């Protein structure tokens, strides 16, 4: 009988083995790096992370301390290379601490949104009877313009950065739920799910241990793209006065404050504007790069 088995006693496989595949993470990483634009995005995000983490080390001034003796200095001034704002606060310090705020806001609202969206998407995709109901609720949420929904939520909860996180995460839930539901639907009918049911695996076990790990790629791409939207929305809401309150160095709030000095000190609006633009651009191109790199069509079976 032993002769009929796939492996002969000498350890030589009878059936052709498939070549050793490189580690998935490493190959994804390589594909992302190869994409020039995604690499630029990655570098910008890396810089933002460094600024956020080491903010106290790379700044000399407190971002919230007023010094009216040096107000409205243009960029390139001595001691304030990015200039100062209308109260004499150092622009560089405010941008650096703003990077910290926007990163924390982005990560926390995307994480909350993903938790909600993944849970709903899994349930809707797995249980047919829940699908109709949940997807109609999602349709309803899609019918609201995103920023309006966020403003509504903040109007109910009150103005604060925490409430902005809640508003943005709630608004992220429906699109995330849709994406996850789609992946679950295609995975649910694969034979390995049937095999798990035949060994008596519970629904929760199948969903969390088997279906979820197989739809990480779209979730990662969605999360990255959503970071851009979340950061932009945070700034938009702060610009409208619904998010960060003075003297918090939030980029959107900084633009709002600088509006009155557009002609005399344009750097007060332009610099935070560039910061927002760069970060949103970075997350978008990285998301694009990740999507290409994680494309299931490029995966070998």
């Amino acid at each position, binding site marked *: *009988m*032993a002769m*009929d*088995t*796939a*492996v002969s006693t000498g*350890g030589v496989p*009878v*059936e*052709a*083995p*498939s070549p*050793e*595949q490189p580690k998935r993470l490493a190959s994804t990483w390589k594909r992302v790096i190869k994409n020039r634009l995604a690499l630029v995005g990655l570098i910008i995000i890396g810089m933002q992370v460094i600024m956020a983490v080491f903010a106290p080390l790379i700044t000399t001034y407190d971002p919230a301390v007023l010094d009216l003796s040096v107000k409205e200095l243009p960029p390139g001034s001595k001691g304030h290379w990015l200039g100062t704002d209308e109260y004499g606060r150092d622009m560089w310090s405010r941008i650096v601490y703003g990077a910290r705020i926007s990163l924390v806001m982005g990560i926390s609202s995307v994480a909350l949104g993903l938790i909600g969206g993944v849970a709903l998407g899994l349930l809707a995709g797995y249980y047919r009877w829940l699908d*109709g109901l949940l997807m109609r609720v999602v349709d309803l949420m899609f019918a609201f313009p995103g920023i309006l929904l966020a403003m509504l939520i903040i109007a109910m909860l009150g103005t604060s950065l925490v409430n902005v996180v809640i508003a943005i995460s709630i608004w992220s839930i429906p699109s995330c739920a849709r994406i996850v539901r789609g992946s679950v639907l295609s995975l649910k009918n*694969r*034979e*390995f799910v*049937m*095999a*798990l*049911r*035949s*060994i*008596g*695996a519970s629904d929760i*076990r199948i969903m969390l241990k*088997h279906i979820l*790990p*197989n739809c990480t790629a779209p979730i990662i791409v969605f999360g990255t793209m959503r970071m851009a939207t979340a950061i932009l929305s945070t700034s938009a809401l702060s610009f409208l006065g619904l998010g960060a309150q003075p003297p918090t160095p939030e980029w959107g709030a900084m633009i709002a404050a600088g509006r009155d000095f557009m002609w005399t000190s344009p750097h007060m609006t332009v610099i935070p504007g560039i910061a927002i633009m760069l970060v949103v651009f970075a997350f978008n191109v990285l998301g694009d790069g990740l999507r290409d790199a994680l494309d299931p069509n490029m995966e*070998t*079976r």
Partner: protein
Amino acid sequence: MPEKVLAKLENVKKYYPVRRGLLNRVAGQVKAVDGVSLVLHNRETLGVVGESGCGKSTLGRTLLRLEKPTEGRLYFNGTDISSLSARALQPFRNKMQMIFQDPFASLNPRQRIGDALEEPLVIHTQLNREERRERVMGLLEEVGLRRDHYDRLPHEFSGGQRQRIGIARALALNPSLIVCDEPVSALDVSVQAQVLKLLQSLQEKHGLTYFFISHDLGVVRHLCDRVLIMYLGQTMELAPVKELYKNPVHPYTEALLSAIPRPVPGRKRERIILSGDLPSPAKPPKGCPFHTRCPEAMTVCKEIRPEWKEVAPGHQVACHVR
């Protein structure tokens, strides 16, 4: 043959609703399995043969209670399991397992082989980590894989090796019944023979009962003790394998057997070529489901569904003509 009955099906039906329109109204039913009565003996191999879409896979899944029968009774070891809840079925799950057709789709691509094989043990036994690992190593060797395959991912294996993993997973809990859903039809012919031999030796060693779904009559003849012929969700003929190949009764069985290529050129038998397409199981013909394509159909075949009758000991058939 006073053999022990392992599983028994009584008039088992599985209908799927066809929903249409805005309100998801039930517009019709696909009769995937339409009234199957059957006894499965301990340690036998029952081959189930039929065209694609004839309900043989659905029958296999219903037998394992992966699908709930719409009607009818299903007994396993004398217990009626046809309407048990998922929780109440749990003790039966380790006694009946399944081997799937597509070795690529039947393994979670993100799960290491060792974890996949340990999973049934985690769910059903109290073994600790080392004991589970030892059991899985034993399983790997039993199905002809190596111990160092434990940490590999499915994509590192060939089709035949993956099918061996599927077999090991089915064996993990020492089941008595294994439904094999076309286990070799996705494999190369050379690998098919290896996997079939493995299945045979495992049956002898563990006293397994196979419910062997296939459309390859050659494989069935080689492996099975009895053969069930299905057509459009209904049973056409059931007989011991030698009897069926020597003395087929149903015209459909005759047509199927005449389609087997013969290695001896001189002994040609006339091929019966069926005309027409397989009718849709959503609108099965009245009377005998086969009458639209049967060369010997009579008027009565169009009106009345033939009875499931015994024509010889252990040889049952549903046909008006014979």
